[in-house]
Each structure stands twice: as C-alpha cells, then as structure tokens.
C-alpha cells in the first residue's frame, strides 16, 4: 500500500493526538487537527528552514509546551509532518514511533 494511502494511520501511532501533512509548497495534504491552517504554515516554514541544515540529517524538531501537548515536525521526503503529542507520553518515544512509521512506509511513497 502506498505511503499516501497510509497517511490516515498517522493518527493511530501511539502518543499522536493530532497531525497535519503539508507538501513542499505548503499545501495541506491531509490532517486531523483543530486550527490546522495556522499550524500547517508553521510546519511548512520550520520544515523548510531546518531542512536547509541538511535534509538527510534533520530528523525532527520538538517544541516543548507549557501545557505538555508538545508539537513535533518531521521531514517526510518532499512533505513535512506536524504532530501534536498526547499528554503523558514521553516525547522521544513518540518521535521514535513516528519515525519508525515513516521509515516503514516512506519507500512506498505514492
């Protein structure tokens, strides 16, 4: 099954509360998020800016929030994925789970 067909499964990854996937022009591809438009812009601008530092080496960025719903951005080929973490989860474990999902399905990107 192609990566794009599996995108809706991102919401099932352990520790993921909300998500939004944007392409390299900032267009929203898929989302399950409240106030997704504002967040999509941040995902795109941060993703692009940090990818300049080394597309292969940039793994993810975590924004630590006072309310504990930490916000993460991952580069996914020509896309960028923004994830809001569920409260009570260990951020590094959530990041690893998302990266494992992406690595499993990225080569089948469609």
């Amino acid at each position, binding site marked *: 099954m192609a990566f794009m067909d599996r995108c809706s499964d991102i919401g099932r990854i352990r520790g993921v509360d909300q998500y939004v996937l944007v392409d390299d022009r900032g267009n929203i591809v898929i989302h399950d998020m409240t106030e997704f438009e504002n967040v999509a*812009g*941040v995902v795109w*601008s*941060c993703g692009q800016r*940090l990818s300049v530092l080394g597309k292969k080496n940039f793994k993810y960025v975590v924004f630590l929030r006072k*309310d504990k719903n930490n916000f993460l951005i991952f580069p996914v080929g020509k896309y960028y994925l923004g994830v809001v973490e569920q409260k009570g989860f260990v951020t590094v474990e959530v990041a690893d789970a998302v990266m494992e999902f992406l690595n499993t399905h990225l080569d089948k990107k469609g």
Partner: protein
Amino acid sequence: MIFFCEDCGEKNDLEGSAFSNGKAVFKCHACGYRNAYFFCPQEKERHRKKDRILKSICCFSEVIGGFLYDTKNGVRETRMPTSLTRADIETLGRAFSHSYTSGQSAYPDILGMYIRIADKYFMIHRVQDNLWVVIVTRTPSLPDDVHKFILDLA
C-alpha cells in the same frame, strides 16, 4: 571616540589606543585634568557572566558544545567544535531562532525546543527577547544542573 573632560567639559577626541580593560584614561588637552572613564562595565560583566555559564554548561559530559545567539548582533559567545566556522554557527542560530519564533506564532506557550540532527540534539532556549542559548548534546534530555544554568542566563 569623543569624551568630555570631567573637570572643564572640553571635548577630547580619543584614539582606540586610549582604551583598555573597559577603561578610557586620558589627560584633557585643554586643562590637563587626568580623566578615567569606565564605559559599559555592567554590560561587560553581564557578557562575562554569560560566557562563564556557557563554559560551565559545556563541562557536562553529555554536552558537546553551545553558543549564545543574538538576533540583532549574531553569535555572541561560542563553545562549538572548531570544525564549525563562525558562518556555520550564524546559519544555525538564524534557522533556530526563526523556527522558534515561527512555532510561537501557533503555540504561544512554547518553553523551548530541541532539534535532532543526525545523532545530536540541539537544545534551544530563549533567555531574553533577542537572546538564545543553543546547547548541543548527545541525549535528548539535559541534566537538571544544566537547566539551572539556563535559568541563570535569563
């Protein structure tokens, strides 16, 4: 640089050689009064303190390096590996501070951020309006003592 005599008020134009250790010592050309100015000592002390704190942070075994980035004046202090040039560190500081600000536009309650690049973690904290501390570590969590140092930087 222009300095006014403390005694007669006459204008004295001094060369850079008249300054040392944050002090300008000169004899007024009009009245001969010997002046000794201390310029920005508090600012210098603040910079020294930040450098000391950065040095302390970099002593932890988990910490690879770090730097202070000022959005107006660029890199202020650096203890990054010498393989990185000043321009490289400027690029990192600019990218990190812009990303942090961008993140805050969606989530104003952001307290800090970290970025995983290869197997390193770049911890970024805003310590003043225009000042950021960036710490490079081998692990995604900082020791409590390092957090305390970061709070001291603010």
